[in-house]
């Protein structure tokens, strides 16, 4: 039924292509879509409907309805009528059971009519309660269209390109092309997009044409994602012209969903674009010129048009379509039966205003034309062509009994269902939509929204204007998740020593946004090395903020709870960052390198939050101080263990003797030739140095330290070793031992707070909490059994807190940890229980202070 060559056809008869459909090979030309090729090859039933499994075929052939959903190369529910044939596709029909031609589930349509009215599932399966899970499992197997997971999806890229446009014109029909040409002539940068492939070859000078390219939505700031093949154009436009035209609305009559019933757009595209004769004997019910033109095209294509009825201005005829073997066989008009295999019918054309409504334009009901049309537009957004309502109207109607008159073909919702819903009290379009599921299918209301509002208006007596519309929401066309998501994009931070660590055998884990070595193969050996020899750890992940200026000291006294003014040059002090409400958000160190120069370190995850809080405090009080984020400029290592001093002495010009470089001292000098800042702090509990140096020299310094430490059995340390070693000292890790509510008072850090130094972050809240006393306390504990971290602390059988950290000590072999307990039992030796899971309990006792080297001699030695 392919017609001979016609001018204006958009197929290339010299470029043959094939694809398979349910295993059979199908011939097509370049320019055909899968739908047009199948239709040309005689296929009429394309899919089965959602609830009644009625046969469905091409109805709009323009990507508006769900009558041709098929699986293409593993992609479910593709609108075959607009999917251009590339060649070699594996196309499969989507049926729950049987085949397209014979679907046993169709019994639901014949038998279940009265038993499955709209909302039936709210009345069934209530009693007995135990029955429902089985009914639900059965229902699940009977619903759902696309198959997923049988074969891995065909890998195809989805890239994103961020673009700007002077004028973005959506819709390349006559009015869209005019608008594009006009703005291009004014010298604007114009992009014209249209979802229909036939405009791919359209050329207008000064205009970039993207076709097929679907504008998925109009987002805030006039941002429009245009979904083309393999590329999402994310266009921010100074001006948007919406010229998306209007859509044929189905005529409502009994059997209006049968394959063989089509709208004028289907005829225009089948004959006009792909030179296909849609049928042999046709009846045309014309509601507008589109109907007249369809009749003309059919005669030109050699179809016998046995009857043409003009629906304009006449009493709606009683129409009933009859089927044989699932296909249209005849139509009864006011009792007169006419055999035909094609019935072209529509009620008129409704403006496709969704993108305008999404952008914020208001919509009104034009009673004269019986359509919803855009009303006030927002600035930067224009409407052109029939989307404005000009040349669009939906006035024609037909009488139908309503039992199989489909208002919403996607969801099998009939006119009778809507009337019944109103009868039950669902009189507003929004709850009628949720109750009947009308407009909730793949066409998202393109073909059924207007009819639903008008049906409600008739049933309730409330006018369409008062009933209003449902909210227009993106996407304008169903779009695959993979195409919207685009390329994988998960920024991870790596230190300058990332590859040096990898070569040393590091096993990487995520800690927040950082990739960090968890261990280098043997965490226990790493711990042992620190206690007995020396270990080297990459701590470049620490946040580093250089604070410099006349008000630097006053500033730090304001943002830290502890006193900073007493910190001398070349000394370092531990500090806590709090929120205004006195909760801990981070911890770190304050290193004074000059009268008005400090380096402040934060945890690896906390630097952004602290940096922004610092700048806010400076701006609020107009302080003369600069805060410079040098986290990336400097790398850092911690060299810890009894042999640390000896190793360091081999690579630095700084005098490392204990008297010259005491605990909490700071020195600056060269390490492995790089300009470095060194300090003695004891987070890991042994003699230790934290060394900061330019990241550009990081690998050089790391290799030098490892070489110098070789004879002492130096090992690189991972996060696992860090967690174990600091736990021996009872040191907390913010984010692991603290949560969003933890305060310094709960962690025994009250004494650090310099209450008398005037305003500092959180002082009022902390002051009040201090008067009232904390409810819980974060304390060390020893236990008989090793609990999982997070497990509940039980006091008197009730949940009284939780374990935040727990390990078996590499030094004492005892189980040690940190936990929240009720403040009342926060003192040394108090007993409590741990929930070990499956109802088992374990004993535990509070231990205040470090488990290992409580007086810190090893750190200070």
């Amino acid at each position, binding site marked *: 039924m392919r017609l001979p060559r016609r001018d204006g056809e958009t197929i290339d008869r010299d470029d043959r292509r094939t694809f398979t459909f349910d295993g059979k090979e199908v011939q097509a030309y370049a320019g055909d879509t899968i739908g047009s090729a199948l239709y040309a090859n005689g296929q009429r039933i394309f899919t089965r409907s959602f609830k009644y499994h009625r046969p469905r075929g091409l109805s709009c052939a323009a990507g508006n309805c769900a009558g041709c959903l098929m699986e293409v190369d593993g992609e479910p529910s593709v609108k075959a009528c607009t999917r251009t044939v590339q060649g070699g596709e594996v196309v499969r029909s989507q049926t729950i059971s049987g085949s397209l031609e014979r679907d046993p589930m169709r019994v639901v349509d014949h038998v279940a009519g009265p038993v499955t009215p709209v909302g039936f599932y709210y009345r069934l399966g209530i009693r007995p309660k135990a029955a429902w899970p089985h009914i639900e499992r059965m229902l699940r197997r009977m619903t759902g269209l696309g198959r997923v997971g049988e074969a891995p999806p065909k890998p195809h890229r989805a890239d994103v390109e961020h673009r700007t446009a002077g004028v973005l014109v959506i819709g390349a029909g006559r009015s869209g092309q005019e608008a594009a040409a006009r703005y291009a002539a004014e010298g604007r940068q114009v992009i014209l997009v249209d979802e229909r492939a036939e405009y791919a070859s359209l050329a207008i000078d000064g205009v970039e044409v993207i076709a097929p390219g679907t504008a998925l939505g109009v987002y*805030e700031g006039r*941002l429009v994602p245009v979904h083309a093949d393999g590329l999402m154009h994310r266009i*921010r436009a100074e001006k948007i012209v919406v010229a998306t035209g209007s859509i044929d609305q189905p005529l409502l009559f009994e059997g209006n969903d049968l394959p063989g019933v089509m709208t004028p757009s289907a005829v225009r595209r089948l004959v006009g674009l792909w030179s296909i004769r849609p049928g042999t004997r046709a009846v045309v019910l014309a509601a507008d010129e589109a109907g007249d033109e369809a009749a003309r095209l059919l005669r030109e294509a050699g179809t016998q048009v046995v009857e043409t009825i003009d629906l304009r201005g006449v009493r709606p005829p009683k129409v009933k379509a009859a089927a044989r073997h699932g296909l249209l066989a005849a139509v009864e008009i006011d009792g007169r039966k006419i055999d035909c295999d094609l019935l072209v019918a529509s009620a008129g054309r409704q403006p496709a205003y969704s993108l305008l409504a999404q952008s914020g334009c208001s919509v009104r009901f034009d009673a004269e034309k019986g359509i919803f049309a855009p009303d006030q537009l927002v600035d930067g957004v224009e409407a052109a062509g029939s989307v404005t309502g000009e040349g669009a109207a939906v006035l024609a109607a037909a009488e139908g009994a309503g039992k199989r008159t489909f208002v919403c073909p996607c969801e099998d919702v009939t006119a009778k269902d809507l009337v019944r819903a109103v009868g039950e009290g669902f009189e507003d379009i929004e709850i009628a939509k949720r109750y009947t599921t009308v407009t909730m299918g793949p066409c998202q209301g393109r073909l059924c929204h207007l009819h639903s509002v008008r049906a409600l208006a008739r049933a309730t007596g409330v006018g369409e204007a008062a009933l209003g519309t449902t909210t227009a929401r993106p996407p304008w066309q169903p779009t695959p998740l993979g195409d919207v998501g685009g390329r994988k994009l998960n920024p991870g931070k790596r230190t300058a020593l990332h590859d040096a660590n990898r070569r040393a055998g590091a096993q990487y884990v995520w800690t927040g946004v950082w990739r960090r070595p968890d261990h280098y193969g043997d965490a226990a050996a790493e711990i042992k090395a620190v206690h007995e020899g020396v270990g080297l750890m990459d701590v470049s992940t620490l946040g580093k903020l250089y604070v410099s200026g006349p008000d630097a000291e006053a500033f730090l006294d304001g943002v830290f709870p502890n006193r900073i003014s007493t910190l001398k040059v070349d000394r370092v002090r531990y500090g806590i960052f709090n929120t205004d*409400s006195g909760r801990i958000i981070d911890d770190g160190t304050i290193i004074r390198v000059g009268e008005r120069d400090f380096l402040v370190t934060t945890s690896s995850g906390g630097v952004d939050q602290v940096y922004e809080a610092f*700048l*806010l405090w400076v*701006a609020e009080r107009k302080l003369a101080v600069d805060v410079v984020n040098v986290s990336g400029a400097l790398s850092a290592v911690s060299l810890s263990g009894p042999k640390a001093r000896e190793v360091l002495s081999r690579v630095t010009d700084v005098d490392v003797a204990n008297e010259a470089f005491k605990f909490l001292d700071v020195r600056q000098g060269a390490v492995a030739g790089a300009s470095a800042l060194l300090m003695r702090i004891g987070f890991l509990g042994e003699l230790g140095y934290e060394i900061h140096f330019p990241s550009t020299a990081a690998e050089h310094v790391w290799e030098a330290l490892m070489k110098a430490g070789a004879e002492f059995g130096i090992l690189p340390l991972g996060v696992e070793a860090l967690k174990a070693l600091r736990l021996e000292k009872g040191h907390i890790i913010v984010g692991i031992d603290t949560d969003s509510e933890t305060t310094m008072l709960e962690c025994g850090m009250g004494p650090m707070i310099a209450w008398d130094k005037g305003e500092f972050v959180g002082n009022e*809240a902390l002051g009040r909490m201090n008067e009232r006393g904390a409810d819980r306390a974060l304390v060390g504990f020893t236990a008989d059994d090793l609990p999982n971290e997070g497990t509940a602390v039980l006091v008197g059988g009730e949940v009284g807190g939780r374990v935040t950290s727990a390990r078996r000590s590499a030094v004492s072999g005892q189980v040690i940890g940190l936990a929240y307990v009720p403040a009342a039992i926060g003192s040394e030796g108090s007993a409590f229980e741990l929930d070990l899971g499956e109802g088992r309990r374990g004993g535990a006792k509070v231990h205040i202070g470090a488990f290992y080297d409580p007086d810190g001699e090893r750190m200070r030695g």
Partner: protein
Amino acid sequence: MSFLIPCPHCGNRPQPEFAYGGNIGDDPPGSMLDVLSEDLYFNDNTAGEQFERWFHRFGCERWIVIRRDTRTNQVSEGWEGVDAP
């Protein structure tokens, strides 16, 4: 992407480039609860225009103030600094 924020230094930029810093100065707290917790946790949660602080993370790394209508996300103006003009 969502609404645009007029950064005085960098020009109109999409909101995800900024970190929200809270609105400025809810009007004086009611008498209901004691003063401290009143202004820390209780707020107007205004449905309308309010002054807000934003930090331009993907640009000048400065705090700016804008006036935004929380009903429409319409931003009328942006200023340097952290205080309402």
